[in-house]
């Protein structure tokens, strides 16, 4: 791939980002290729050594908050005409609830994500606490040896289970973070990247 081809492909892979983000990223990679060529690396190799366009796209997208990406997509590209504004106002009862419900869905997804994590650890902690209380109660109670043995047995078991569960929950939370990162990247890719390129290709 030549430098010009690479730059062109990168630009379309990042299409949808703000003008500033797009320019910064493209400028950076252009500078890298130029510096590599100046260092004596042949153009083909200078370009291929940077990695695939998709890898680069992923790395750039990971750093840009999803809110910025969505905002950029929604922002009108040109000044709206009078008729369009009028239609927007008339259509408000239709699109405002849709946009609002999308935002609320996003927020509730985010909240349930953290609530699940919180509830896992609260469950674990309460198991641990009840275990400790059982052991303490075993020594405090006055019902005799058998009750004490029973209580302390349950106490030890509960504490043990809570410790085991703690490690299990850590793994679950790790997995949740991993999946949510993938999900967010996938979401971002819905907004970024040239969609019209196929139409252009058929036009050519």
């Amino acid at each position, binding site marked *: 791939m030549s430098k010009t081809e690479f730059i062109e492909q990168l630009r379309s892979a990042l299409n949808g980002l703000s003008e500033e983000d797009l320019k910064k990223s493209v400028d950076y990679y252009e*500078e890298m290729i130029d510096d590599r060529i100046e260092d004596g690396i042949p153009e083909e190799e200078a370009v291929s050594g940077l990695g695939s366009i998709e890898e680069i796209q992923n790395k750039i997208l990971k750093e840009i908050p999803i809110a910025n990406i969505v905002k950029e997509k929604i922002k009108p590209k040109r000044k709206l005409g009078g008729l369009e504004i009028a239609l927007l106002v008339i259509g408000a009862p239709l699109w405002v609830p849709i946009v609002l419900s999308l935002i609320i869905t996003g927020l509730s997804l985010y909240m349930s994500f953290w609530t699940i994590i919180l509830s896992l650890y609260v469950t674990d902690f309460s198991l641990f606490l009840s275990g400790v209380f059982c052991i303490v109660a075993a020594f405090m109670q006055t019902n005799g040896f058998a009750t004490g043995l029973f209580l302390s047995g349950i106490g030890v078991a509960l504490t043990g289970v809570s410790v085991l569960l703690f490690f299990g929950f850590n793994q679950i939370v790790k997995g949740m973070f991993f999946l949510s990162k993938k999900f967010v990247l996938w979401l971002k890719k819905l907004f970024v990247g040239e969609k019209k390129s196929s139409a252009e290709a058929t036009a050519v």
Partner: protein
Amino acid sequence: MKRGLLDVCVLAAIKDEDSYGYRIVKDLSPYVEISESTLYPILRRLESSQMLTVRTAEHNGRLRKYYHITDSGVERLKQFESEWKELMQIYEYVTREGGSHEQN
């Protein structure tokens, strides 16, 4: 851990004099695995957290960006140094004990 480590490496690469992307990658490559596309997000992150500033200068008829470390960037390096001094002491302790155990 690794991510923070790379940030520190990049700061270290520009601490003595301003440098540019390709040179940072070249300077760091004997020590850590870093590619141009890994460097890019790091530079942007460091810029937004004001650990470095960027200026554009002309080079061979094209533009090149030079990165300059700020005071808080220098501060971050100092912090890294003291953190690692502590860790190295622990490392020495741990490895020394292992060595003497083998000799027995």
